[in-house]
């Protein structure tokens, strides 16, 4: 299967600032793809090079097999939803949506039918006559979507489209965007700094740091098996311990500071693992507190509660274990009958070799 969008060795400089440092990327047709990273990592620059607002300093960009060098934004089969939405303030909602149809061969009637259809699709049926400055944030975003999708682009580019909305609205729009993408079948490329948003919405995610792609995978792999400490830190919460890997024939085992030795199943061992020092990541939800009266078949280690943060449905504990300098964070669901421990309480922490994520030291 050939890629719809294909980048090879893409470099971008602003003066002496190196914004993109060799990006190789293939995005398939119909994919919901996210560029995720902290601010300044180059994700927006990458999106804007695909849109045609920024030229490449080096490398190639192909869309649908065609080289895009020298092709200006107005001639590319991409459309964009801007972070500020960029709704034309002097035009009505319908005029905004119809903006890109100016040069099309459609008749007036066909155009207004297309506008109506696009507005219906984003849930703004009947809003066509409204003045655009009278819209709420969520409505502006829908107009921006309709305006871009009416042109039936091969790729829809979304630059932090949800960052200006409040939390409730954001969650609602996440679901709607997924539904919309499935409905139209167009490739979506989303730029976001919100890892949760990326995990919820994407088929695949590229995590970017300082102009490079750190890891590119589907959300589950990205969460369960980050390939580096910075990816692990950026996505979700992660405890870090040190460990030493030893190999013996086909089996790989690791001696984790404070927890002890564990033999790793083959699926937990990243390719190219060699004996020596490593960093061990442990997600808070893969550890557990052993409450009074409960029993476990798994391994346990003595611990002291040093911090309790109560979230209602969850409680986050920081615990200290012998031989480890920093506290470990453990998240526990507040199931029926389960107490909330106090700071200073002596307890046991349950762990398992499947809790361990091997990372380069």
């Amino acid at each position: 299967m050939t890629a719809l969008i294909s980048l090879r060795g893409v470099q971008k400089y602003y003066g002496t600032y190196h914004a993109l440092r060799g990006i190789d990327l293939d995005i398939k047709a119909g994919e919901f793809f996210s560029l995720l990273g902290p601010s300044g990592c180059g994700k927006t620059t990458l999106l804007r090079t695909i849109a045609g607002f920024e030229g490449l300093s080096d490398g190639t960009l192909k869309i649908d097999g065609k080289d895009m060098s020298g092709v200006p934004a107005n001639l590319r089969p991409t459309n964009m939803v801007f972070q500020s939405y960029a709704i034309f303030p002097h035009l009505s909602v319908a005029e905004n949506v119809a903006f890109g149809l100016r040069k099309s061969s459609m008749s007036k009637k066909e155009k207004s039918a297309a506008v109506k259809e696009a507005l219906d699709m984003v849930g703004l049926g009947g809003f066509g006559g409204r003045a655009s400055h009278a819209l709420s944030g969520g409505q502006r975003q829908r107009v921006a979507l309709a305006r871009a999708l009416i042109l039936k682009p091969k790729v829809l580019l979304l630059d932090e489209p949800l960052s200006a909305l409040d939390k409730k609205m954001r969650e609602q729009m996440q679901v709607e965007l997924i539904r919309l993408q499935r409905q139209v079948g167009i490739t979506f490329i989303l730029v976001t700094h919100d890892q949760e948003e990326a995990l919820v919405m994407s088929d695949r995610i590229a995590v970017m740091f300082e102009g490079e792609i750190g890891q590119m995978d589907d959300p589950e792999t990205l969460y369960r098996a980050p390939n580096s400490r910075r990816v692990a830190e950026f996505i979700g919460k992660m405890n870090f311990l040190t460990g030493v890997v030893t190999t013996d024939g086909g089996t790989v085992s690791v001696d984790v500071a404070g927890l002890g030795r564990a033999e790793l199943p083959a699926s937990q061992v990243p390719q190219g693992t060699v004996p020596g020092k490593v960093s061990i990541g442990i997600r808070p939800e893969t550890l557990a507190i052993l409450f009074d009266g409960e029993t476990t078949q798994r391994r346990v280690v003595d611990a002291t509660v040093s911090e309790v943060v109560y979230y209602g449905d969850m409680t986050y504990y920081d615990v200290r274990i012998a031989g480890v300098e920093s506290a470990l964070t453990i998240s526990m669901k507040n199931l029926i009958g389960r107490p909330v421990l106090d700071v200073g309480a002596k307890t046991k922490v349950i762990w398992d070799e499947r809790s361990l994520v091997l990372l380069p030291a």
Partner: protein
Amino acid sequence: MKGSGLKIYAIAYLLFLYAPILLLPIFAFNDGTIIAFPLQGFTTKWFGELWTNKALHDAVGNSLFIAMMTAIFATLLGVCAARAGAMASFPGKKGITGFIMLPLVLPEIIVAVSLLIVLRQVLDMQLSNWTIIMAHVLICTPFSIAILNGAFQNIDPALEEAALDLGETRWSAFRLVILPLVVPGIISSMLISFTISLDEFIIAFFLTGSNPTMPVYIWGLLRFPASLPVVMALGTLLVTLSIVLLATAEYFRRRGLARAGIKDSGGFL
């Protein structure tokens, strides 16, 4: 209250600002040739004299022509500079902008004498309305830029990109998106430039040719006590005209802000 004390001061200050202007109509309608109290009685004859004064009509005609040309050219240059100002930076941009804005703080007499030297002594040109227009464009452009900067910088740069993204070229994006949003600023800039040029005396006095502009003509009249009431009548008309022009300029400036969906926060400059 602290605020009310300030308010009284503010009103007194406004009175100080308006004192000369308030006197204008009083003497314009005063039936006496001496501009002093006590008043003599009501008359409209000074306005009548305005209608029959051929020299005055010529001067007003010159001034209107100069002001119109100045408004057009200063605003054209202002649009270029303000548009460039809202775009990405380039080496030396700050210095160049500062230099273009320099006439705003330069004493007008310096502009006047330096231009006079170049035009008369170096180029040996005849002084005419066009020499005044050249100088007025120079001093009005910074005002035009100041007004248009507000208009251009209020525009989200993503709007132009959105137009490009939706298939427009750079030029059609400017025509369809940027221009409609700055038209009120352009009108406002033209009206302000027109007003400045119409009223400008210091430079015009140096650069005027054989046909005086209106302020230069008024300057001549000020020496003859007999013609002073006519000057008062003329002044009354000019003040009325200025207020109408400025109110229109302000109206368009505000409409521009409303169009761009921005709350009003200040006035000119």
